[in-house]
């Protein structure tokens, strides 16, 4: 039986598929980076909805760790884009 929460979860997964389309098709390198950043935030929403469905709290830990790793990765890629070395 599918509940209303299942439909919201499937919608969220479809939206991250939209981000994958932009990662594959993006005309320039920064387009792909923007889509990867947004994809990371959408995955946190998927983790939150799954934690309601399964009534377990450790899935939210995965979401928090994903936010922090995505933040560090995006900052590193932005530093690389602006043409500086990583130790400046």
């Amino acid at each position: 039986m599918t509940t209303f929460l299942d439909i919201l979860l499937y919608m969220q997964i479809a939206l991250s598929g939209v981000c994958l389309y932009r990662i594959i098709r993006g005309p320039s390198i920064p387009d792909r980076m923007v889509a990867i950043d947004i994809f990371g935030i959408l995955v946190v929403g998927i983790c939150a909805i799954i934690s309601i469905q399964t009534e377990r709290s450790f899935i939210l830990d995965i979401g928090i760790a994903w936010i922090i790793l995505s933040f560090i990765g995006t900052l590193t890629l932005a530093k690389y884009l602006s043409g500086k070395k990583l130790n400046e």
Partner: protein
Amino acid sequence: MASLLFICIGVLFNLLGCIGIIRLPDVYNRLQAATKCVTLGTCSILIGVLFHFGFNDAGIKALIAIPILFFASTVAAHALIRGTYHFGVKLSDKTVKDDYKDAAK
């Protein structure tokens, strides 16, 4: 029931942000549409999780994730778009004003 309402609002905001990713013409427009809508929508989903669990361990984890998400995603978007401008991506043809052109040199 309130948790379902907040999660529904959040998924709606995420939908609008992803329409922005597909439809808008260049990378600056895409980032400014997507990062605002998706950050607000995911924070709304986490508020829904807090309403569902109450103040036990899972609810407190969702409450902690909200400020981390706000600061991390906005700072990352700002750094990313500054790097994109220095990388030399052209603006869209319909852009009427570019205030950052003088400050970037």
